[in-house]
């Protein structure tokens, strides 16, 4: 190698290193937007309707949504539940911040892998848009719910997938349905991208398909092995009002897919289509922007452009069928913001998307 070539390589290396540092600093500053979102939305106290997540455990037998209560149960020997409530809120805040950090790491990885300067800027600004979106405030608002832990499981598994560690990913996603059966909806974007990558890429097809299916199989198992007697004992031991308990027996544990859909189609959707469209339009704009960013950054590299775009759209919208089963509109619509981020991350990940060379 001649001297001038070595100098050029050295300069290029230094430029790449300084660009990497600049990108890291920019993404780190954008995390503040997510922190502001958490602060903006954080509920000050644990809603009594959400206490059962932390009190119901496997002590009487296996029940749905009993994992978090089982993990907390030993602490009740040391502290009263009233003392634990601030800790639950504190843990929720920590989990929200962990999600912000995890997403920043994904976007940093995506920026680093991209050679085009305009795509790097767009990816960084996409992270800013995600941090400003309704995702973080709604997540913080729902302190006491377990959605934040479901998202942590999804992002952890996604990390393993991007780094081709499918067994670790499978072991991670087993936890999701034990926390809440709704995990499968949050998992859908990853599952769809795994399935698509099997169609387009030859490597690890069996592992990817099994991984995609694991949460669905686990959910069936959770519902199958749920012990109604254990639930009744847990409910009896819960010092909540009869009104709250009755509502949970009817609407949390007493619903099937069919009865949930029936309730929604009879009582929630009729007369409220206008409200529904307003909430959808408001909440989904960030998802559309992230999808647009994915097209801008990776369209020229996708080997099957239009099919990949269709898959990306489907994956972004895939958590939304849960709206047909539950009336927490903002809570479920914000899941699409995370789904769009997963799509943007996956659209540029060689393990999930068939990509051509990056000709910068």
């Amino acid at each position: 190698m001649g001297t001038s070539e070595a100098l050029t390589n050295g300069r290029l290396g230094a430029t790449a290193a300084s660009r990497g540092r600049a990108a890291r600093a920019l993404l780190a500053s954008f995390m503040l937007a997510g922190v502001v979102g958490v602060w903006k939305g954080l509920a000050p106290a644990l809603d009594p309707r959400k206490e059962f997540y932390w009190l119901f455990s496997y002590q009487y037998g296996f029940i749905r949504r009993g994992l978090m209560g089982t993990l907390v149960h030993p602490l009740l020997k040391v502290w009263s539940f009233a003392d634990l409530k601030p800790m639950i809120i504190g843990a929720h805040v920590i989990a929200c911040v962990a999600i912000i950090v995890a997403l920043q790491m994904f976007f940093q990885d995506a920026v680093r892998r991209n050679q085009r300067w305009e795509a790097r800027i767009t990816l960084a600004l996409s992270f800013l848009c995600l941090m400003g979106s309704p995702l973080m405030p709604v997540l913080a608002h729902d302190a006491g719910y377990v959605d934040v832990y479901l998202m942590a499981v999804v992002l952890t598994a996604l990390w393993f997938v991007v780094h081709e560690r499918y067994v670790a990913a499978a072991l991670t996603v087993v936890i999701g349905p034990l926390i809440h059966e709704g995990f499968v909806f949050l998992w859908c974007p990853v599952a769809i991208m795994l399935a698509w990558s099997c169609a387009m890429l030859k490597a690890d097809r069996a592992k990817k398909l099994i991984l995609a299916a694991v949460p669905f199989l686990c959910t069936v198992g959770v519902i199958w092995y749920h012990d109604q007697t254990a639930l009744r004992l847990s409910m009896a031991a819960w010092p909540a009002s009869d009104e709250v308990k009755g509502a949970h027996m009817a609407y949390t544990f007493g619903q099937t897919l069919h009865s949930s859909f029936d309730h929604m189609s009879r009582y929630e959707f009729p007369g409220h289509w206008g409200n529904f469209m307003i909430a959808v339009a408001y909440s989904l704009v960030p998802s559309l922007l992230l999808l647009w960013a994915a097209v801008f950054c990776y369209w020229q590299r996708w080997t099957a452009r239009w099919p990949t775009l269709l898959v990306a759209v489907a994956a972004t919208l895939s958590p939304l069928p849960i709206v047909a089963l539950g009336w927490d509109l903002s809570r479920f619509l914000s899941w699409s913001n995370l789904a769009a981020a997963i799509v943007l991350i996956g659209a540029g990940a060689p393990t999930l998307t068939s990509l051509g060379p990056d000709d910068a």
Partner: protein
Amino acid sequence: MPRRAIHAVVLNLALVAGAAFYLLSPTVYAYFSEVSMSYSRVPAWFAATAPASMTARIFARYNAGSPIAARFRKRLPCYLVDAGARQNQDCAHDIGRGQLVYGPPNFKIPSGRYVAWFGFSRDEACAAGEVRLEVDTKWWSDSGGGPSGGRFRKTLATYAGRIEPGDRIELPFTLKLVDAALGAVEFRAVGVSDCVLLSRIELNEIPAPLR
């Protein structure tokens, strides 16, 4: 300018605009029939920004058909909280000196012009007395509350004076867009002297004048 550069500029501006809009907007928590908006722990000036008023405008009529608000309006006194005052079986409230009744909790109605009227009667314990009546809007976290709770309280209408049994006090007020979006309407009655019996509260919307 190359097409891709134009595309980049447009997209990046949209991303930044979107980020700024949603960051400054309140936390929107919607169900199918009602929505609440809040700023939990950020400075008050967030509520004075353009995204806050735009969001309030987007969701301006969302709560118009709220079943909870409809239930409250049918029998408002039954949903009031007694802080010292005493509620009887007919949902009337004996309010003595220094005693307070307030509520209902998280009463969300659309913006507009309203008249609240307070009806008083008598029972064995209470008849005439002095009272202060208020219609407030209170911005608070969805889980917050209490007689003096709430981050920001604004009084929309007030009355202070002597009440005789059979009196009916009307308080017209205007609920502005951002107040309706971020706050909940609260009725308060504080006893100043003797004891009064608050037996009815009703709320009627004043139709907008025809142009």
